C-alpha cells in the first residue's frame, strides 16, 4: 500500500496524543501527578496539539476535506466513522479534565476514567479500520489493533515521563510501566513481522481470474500503459532488504532505545534525567514513524495479483 504521509502522521501523532491523555489521567488517578497549572497547560496542550495536528493531517488525505463532517454519520457499519465519532467524543471529558486541571488546579477522577476509556476506544477504532480489511493480509491480522493500542500507550508514556522529569517529580514507577509497554510493543511487533512473513499467500492470478484451472496464469498485457489509481495506491511495494533494515530501525531506535534511555534515567545523576527523557522522545518519534511507514509499505493488497504479482 502506498505510504501516504498524511495518514502516517495522523496515526502516529494522534496515537501518541491519546496515549498522553491516558497517562495524564492515570498518573492523576494514582496521585503521581498533582494538578498544577503550568504542567497541565503544557502537557494537555501537547496532547491536544498532537491529536488535533493528526486530525488535520488526516483531512489532507481527503479529496473533499470540506465534507469531512459527513464522516460522523455511518458509525453503525464503518470503523472510520466510529473513529471520528470517538475522537470527538473523547474531547469532552479530556477537555473538561484539562479545564479543571489548568484553571482550577483540581482533578476529577470520573473525568479521568472517562478520558481513559474514550481514548482507548478511539485508538481501538483506528486499529480496526485496518484490521477489518480482508483485502490486505498483513492488516487482517489479530495483532494489528493490540499493537496500535500498546504503541499509543508506550509512546504517550515516553512523553509523559518527559513532563514528570521536567516537573522534577517522582518517575521511578511510571518509568517501569513505560519500559514494560515499550518492550511489550517490541515483542508484539516482532511476532507480527514473523507472522506476516510466514503467512501463506493464497491469492494468485489463477485464483483471482478463475483461470487457474486451465494452467498457469500470467499477465500478458496491462489494461493501461501508465499506472492508474489502483496501481498508484495499492501497487506500492518495498524491497525485502530495505524493509528488514527499516524493521530494525523501528525496533531498536523506536522501542528498545527509549526503553534503555528510560532505564538509564533512573540511575542518571540529577539534572541529566530530562535530557535522557528528551532523547527518548526523539528516538521514539523517529522509530515509530518508520514503523508506521513500513506498516503501509509492507502491506500487499490482493488486487496486485490481477496486475502480475505472483501471490498476495
Amino acid at each position: 500500500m502506498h505510504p501516504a504521509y498524511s495518514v502516517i502522521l495522523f496515526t502516529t501523532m494522534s496515537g501518541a496524543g491519546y496515549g498522553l491523555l491516558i497517562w495524564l489521567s492515570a498518573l492523576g488517578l494514582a496521585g503521581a501527578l498533582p494538578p498544577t497549572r503550568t504542567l497541565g497547560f503544557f502537557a494537555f496542550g501537547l496532547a491536544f496539539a498532537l491529536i488535533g495536528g493528526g486530525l488535520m493531517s488526516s483531512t489532507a488525505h481527503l479529496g473533499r476535506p470540506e465534507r469531512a463532517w459527513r464522516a460522523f454519520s455511518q458509525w453503525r457499519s464503518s470503523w472510520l466513522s466510529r473513529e471520528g465519532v470517538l475522537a470527538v467524543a473523547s474531547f469532552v471529558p479530556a477537555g473538561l479534565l484539562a479545564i479543571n486541571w489548568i484553571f482550577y488546579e483540581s482533578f476529577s477522577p470520573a473525568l479521568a476514567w472517562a478520558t481513559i476509556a474514550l481514548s482507548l476506544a478511539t485508538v481501538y477504532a483506528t486499529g480496526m479500520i485496518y484490521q477489518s480489511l480482508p483485502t490486505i493480509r498483513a492488516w487482517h491480522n489479530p495483532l494489528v489493533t493490540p499493537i496500535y493500542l500498546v504503541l499509543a500507550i508506550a509512546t504517550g508514556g515516553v512523553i509523559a515521563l518527559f513532563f514528570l522529569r521536567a516537573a522534577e517529580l517522582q518517575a521511578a514507577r511510571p518509568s517501569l510501566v513505560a519500559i514494560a509497554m515499550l518492550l511489550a510493543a517490541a515483542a508484539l511487533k516482532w511476532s507480527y513481522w514473523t507472522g506476516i512473513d510466514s503467512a501463506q499467500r493464497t491469492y494468485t492470478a489463477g485464483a483471482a481470474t478463475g483461470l487457474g484451472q486451465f494452467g498457469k496464469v500470467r499477465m500478458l498485457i496491462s489494461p493501461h500503459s501508465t499506472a492508474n489509481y489502483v496501481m498508484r495506491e495499492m501497487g506500492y511495494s518495498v524491497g525485502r532488504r530495505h524493509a528488514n533494515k527499516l524493521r530494525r530501525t523501528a525496533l531498536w531506535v523506536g522501542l528498545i532505545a527509549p526503553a534503555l534511555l528510560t532505564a538509564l534515567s533512573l540511575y542518571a545523576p540529577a539534572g541529566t534525567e530530562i535530557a535522557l527523557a528528551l532523547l527518548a522522545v526523539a528516538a521514539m518519534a523517529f522509530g515509530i514513524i518508520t514503523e508506521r511507514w513500513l506498516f503501509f509499505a509492507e502491506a500487499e493488497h490482493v488486487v496486485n495479483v490481477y496486475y502480475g504479482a505472483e501471490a498476495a
Partner: protein
Amino acid sequence: MTSLPQSTDKKLGLVIDLDTCVGCQACATSCKEWNTGGYSAPLSDIQPYGVDPQGTWLNRIHSYEIGEGSTSRTVHFPRSCLHCETPACVTVCPTGASYKRAEDGIVLVNPDTCIGCKLCSWACPYGAREYDYAEGVMRKCTLCVDRIYNEHIPEEDRIPACVRACPTGARHYGDLGDSESKVSKLVAERGGYALLPEMDYKPVNRYLPPRPRRDSNTASSDTPRPAEKPVSTGAAIERLFKFADKILSR
C-alpha cells in the same frame, strides 16, 4: 446508509464470456464515453496528451496468458465492479456515499457526499474503484443506472453501455437473482463462476470460462492428426532429392 440491505429484490449484474472476448477495449471506451457524461460525471483525465497520462476508468481489460508452450492461450479479461452482495467497500464508507440499492442490488457512490477518503477502494479486492484525482471523489461502475431505467432512450439502448458496445456479444446483462432469466440460464449452462469466492463478498457478476481449445494440438481423436512428415518410400528418386537437398543447403 452504508449498512447493507438484508436482501435485494433483484440482483442486476453482468455475465462476461471469456471465450468470446477479443480484448478490443470497445466496452471500456464506450463505458468511459457514457459515464463521463452520466451519473458520476466527469471521469477526469490528467495529462491525457502528456508523458504520464492517467484517467479514471470504470472498466479495465487485462490480457492473460494461460498455460505454457504450444498449448498456451491468450484470454482477455474485462474487470469492473461485480456489484457484490456483501461488499466491504460499502460498509467501510464513513459518509454513506457508498451504498447498495435494495431494489436492484446496484452498488453506487454518491459523488455529492463522497469525501474521497479512499477507504472503499482499499476494501475492494477487485480493484473496481478508481479515485478521481481531479474531482476528489471515488468512481465506480454504476451498471449504467442512468441508461437501464431511462425512458428517454430507445428500448434497445436500455442496457449498460459496455454490453451495447461489445462487438462479439461477450457481455450479457440481466437479473442474476432470477434463476429463470437468460443470464442465469447462460451461467448454469456454461459453468459461470464468481471471482475470489473465498473473499466472501458474494459477487453478482459471473464469468464464463473459455471453451476447450480446438486446434491441431488438441483436436479430438476421430479426426486423425496430419502426419508431420511424409512417410519415406525409399525410392531412388527420393534418395536423389534428399542428396540434392543436402548439397544445396550447405
